[in-house]
C-alpha cells in the first residue's frame, strides 16, 4: 500500500515536471519569454490591479448609478446616463470648468517658463549645480497640507508676511488675497506654481544635459549668439521634455487641494473649481452623491485625455 502511494506521488510529481518543461518550451518558442518572469511581476500587477485598475473600473461603473453614500442600499441603483444628462443642467459644472481652465492657464505656462529659466541658469553654473538642484526640488517634497497652511498664514490680510511687508513698503491697502474675488484664484495658483516648478526643472535639466555640447560649439563657431543657440538649438531639442511636462500637467482637476484647504471655494465661489465641486458633492453635501461625482470624474478624465492627445498631435516629431 505504502509503495503504491509512493509510486502514485512520484508519478504525479514527474507528470507536473514534464508539464512544466513542455510549457516552458512552448512559451519560449512563441516568444513569451520565461514564464517565471510573470511570477516576478505578479505582485506589481496585483498592486496595480487593486489600487489603480480596479478603482478606475469601479468608478466607471459607479458613474452610471445613483449611488448616495448616505443610503448604502443605493449602491447598485443603475440610472443609465441620467448623471450625464443632469450635468448639462448643473450650473456648477460650467462654473467649475471655467475656473479650472483659468487655473490651468495661470499655472501651466508659469511653471514651464519658471522651470525652463531655472534649468538654463543651473546648467550654466560651474560649481554647486547639485546644491541648486536640491534647492529647487525642496518645495516639491514638502507635504501639501504643510505648504498650503504656510501659504494661508502668508496671505493673511492683516498679519500675513506678504501684506505686512507691502504696508512697510508704503502700500496702505494691499489686497485681501484670499478674500478678494480678483486675487483669490491667482493667489492659490501661485501655491501650485511654487509646489510644482521643481520637478519640471529637473526634467528640463536632464534634457539640456542630453544635448551634445559639440552642437553649441559648432554654432558658436558659425557666429550664433547665446540667444540664437537657446532658440534654435536648446528649444527644439527640448521638445520631448515639453511634451512630457505638458502631458503630466494636463489634468483639468487642478486647484482642488488649495481651494479645499484655504478658501473652500470662496470668496463668492471664485475658486470653486470642478475638482472641488466634485469633492463637495461626493463627501460633504446633501446625500453625498458618489454616483454623480463619479460621472463628473469620468468627464474630467475624458477632457484630460483629450488635452493630452492635443499636445501629442501638436508636438509630435515629424
Amino acid at each position, binding site marked *: 500500500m505504502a509503495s503504491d502511494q509512493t509510486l502514485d506521488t512520484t508519478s504525479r510529481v514527474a507528470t507536473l515536471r514534464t508539464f512544466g518543461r513542455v510549457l516552458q518550451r512552448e512559451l519560449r518558442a512563441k516568444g513569451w519569454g520565461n514564464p517565471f518572469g510573470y511570477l516576478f511581476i505578479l505582485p506589481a500587477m496585483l498592486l496595480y490591479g487593486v489600487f489603480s485598475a480596479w478603482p478606475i473600473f469601479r468608478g466607471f461603473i459607479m458613474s452610471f448609478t445613483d449611488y448616495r453614500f448616505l443610503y*448604502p*442600499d443605493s449602491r447598485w441603483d443603475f440610472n443609465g446616463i441620467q448623471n450625464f444628462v443632469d450635468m448639462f443642467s448643473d450650473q456648477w459644472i460650467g462654473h467649475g470648468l471655467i475656473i479650472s481652465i483659468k487655473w490651468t492657464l495661470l499655472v501651466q505656462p508659469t511653471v514651464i517658463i519658471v522651470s525652463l529659466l531655472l534649468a538654463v541658469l543651473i546648467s550654466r553654473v560651474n560649481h554647486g549645480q547639485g546644491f541648486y538642484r536640491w534647492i529647487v526640488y525642496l518645495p516639491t517634497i514638502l507635504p501639501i497640507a504643510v505648504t498650503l497652511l504656510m501659504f494661508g498664514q502668508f496671505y493673511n490680510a492683516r498679519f500675513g508676511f506678504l501684506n505686512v511687508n507691502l504696508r512697510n513698503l508704503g502700500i496702505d491697502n494691499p489686497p485681501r488675497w484670499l478674500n478678494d474675488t480678483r486675487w483669490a484664484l491667482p493667489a492659490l495658483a501661485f501655491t501650485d506654481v511654487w509646489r510644482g516648478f521643481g520637478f519640471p526643472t529637473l526634467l528640463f535639466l536632464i534634457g539640456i544635459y542630453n544635448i551634445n555640447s559639440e552642437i553649441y560649439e559648432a554654432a558658436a563657431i558659425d557666429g550664433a549668439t547665446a540667444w540664437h543657440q537657446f532658440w534654435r538649438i536648446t528649444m527644439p531639442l527640448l521638445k520631448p521634455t515639453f511634451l512630457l511636462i505638458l502631458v503630466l500637467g494636463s489634468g483639468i482637476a487642478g486647484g482642488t487641494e488649495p481651494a479645499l484647504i484655504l478658501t473652500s471655494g470662496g470668496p463668492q465661489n471664485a475658486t470653486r473649481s470642478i475638482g472641488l465641486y466634485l469633492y463637495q458633492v461626493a463627501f460633504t453635501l446633501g446625500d453625498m452623491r458618489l454616483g454623480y461625482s463619479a460621472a463628473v470624474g469620468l468627464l474630467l478624465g475624458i477632457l484630460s485625455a483629450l488635452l493630452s492627445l492635443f499636445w501629442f498631435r501638436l508636438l509630435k516629431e515629424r
Partner: protein
Amino acid sequence: MVDKWTRRQFLGAAAATSAVVALAACKPTAAPTAEAVEKPTEPVEASVTADDINFLCRTDIYQAYAAEAAVEAWNAEFPAKVIVDEPAGDLTQKVQAAQAAGDLVWDGYSVMEGPWATMEWVERGLIQPLDAYVEASQIPNADKVVPSIIETIRESASYQDKLYGIPGNCGSVGLAWMTEPLEAAGYTDQPWTWDEVYDAAKKVQEGSTGTVPFAVACRSLCDLYALIWSATDSPIDEDGVVDIRGEASIAAVTWFRKMIEEDLFDWTLGFGDWLKGDIAMIHSYDVAGTMNQQTFGMDAARQGVGIYREPDDLKAGVPFWINMSVLFNQAANPTGMVDFFLWWFGPDNKTTGKQITEVAAKPCYTYTYEEFVAGNADQQWQQEAIDIIADSTWFPVNRTWGIMNTHVGPALEKCYDLGQPFEPEQAMEEAYDNIKEDLAQLREE
C-alpha cells in the same frame, strides 16, 4: 485553440475575464441602516460586565472633558475597562466601512455635533438610540442623568422621538471681548445690542492703536444666523431652512455692511486671528473669551452671551448645538458604553462637571449648574447663556446644514465686498434658490 492565440489576444481575454469576475463579485452587501438594527423589545439586561468598553474620543474633547481622569476613575471602580482611542482622518467613513465589513472595533464616540449631524449619522446607520440602555442602566444615579438634561437640549439631542446622544456641553454664539480696549471705550460690561456693539466699535476705533474693533469667528453661523435668531421669533422657515430672505436677515446684513463701510468690522479675520489678541470684540463660539483668558490672563478677556437687536427682547434666542456622546451601531458592548457615558456626565462625577464648567463651558445638566455655576461670579455668564438657550429655537434635525452654508457663505461675501453693489435681497434670494435646487436633489424621505 489557445495555441493559435497571439500574446495580445491572450492578455485581452485575461483582462476581460477578470473584469467579468470582478463585476460578478460586486454583489450588493447588506449595509446596516437605522431600521436594520434590532431594537430591544424587552429591557436590556443591565450590568457592568467585565467586557472591555472601546471608546473613541476626539482629542480636544479628551482634554476639555477631563476624559483621562474619568477613565482612570471608572477603571478603578468598575469591572469593565474603558480603552480610549483617538480618531484620525475621516471618522464617519471609517466607521461606516467597518460596520459594513462587520469588524467595528469601537462601541461609542465623543463627540457628535447635533443637531446638524444627527440625521446624517442616523440615516447612514452609524449610531443607535440610547433609550433602552439608559432605562436599564444600574449605574448609581443613572436615572437622574437624562431627566436633568435641560429640556431644549434634550429635545435637540433626539430624533424621531429617540435619544441619540448623551450631551456633554452646549455650544452657542456669544460676544467675547478684550477688556482693555472696551474699558477705554467706556464699556465695563458686555455691549448687549447691535447698537451698543456699533457704539463700542466706534469708540475703540477712535482710541485705537490699530486694534480691529470687531470680527466674527466664522461664516455664516457667527454672523448672519446668530443675528437672525436675535431679531426674529421665527428664524426657520417651513422648509427647515434658516430664513435668510426675511426682514431680520436683511437687517443683519445691512448692519454688517455698515460696520464694514466704517471700517469697524474686518470680515476677513476669524477665530485664529482673535487668538492673536489684536481684535477688540468677536462674535464667536463662546469659548473665545475663555481661550484668550488662558493666553493673556483672566482679566484680559471676557466671554459673554449673544447680542440682540432690541434691549430686553431676545426673540428666538441664540443658535446652539450640542456636543454629544453617541453609541455606534454594532457596538460590541453597548450597555457598558452607555453606562460609562451616564457615569461620566452623571451627578457623582464632580471632576468632569467642574472641568466642563471651567473649560468647555455650558454643561447640559441642572445639577452641574447647581454645583459649580450658582453663586460663582466668574461663571455667571454661563447661567445667563444657558437660560437663553433654554428658551431658544433650535436648529431642525435635517440635512440642510451643509447645503445652506455652501450657498449662504458666498452670498454674505458678496454683501460684504465693498467693490460690489449692495443688494442683500437679491443675494439672499439667489442663495435661497441654490439651496432649494440642492434640496431637490436629496432622496425623498
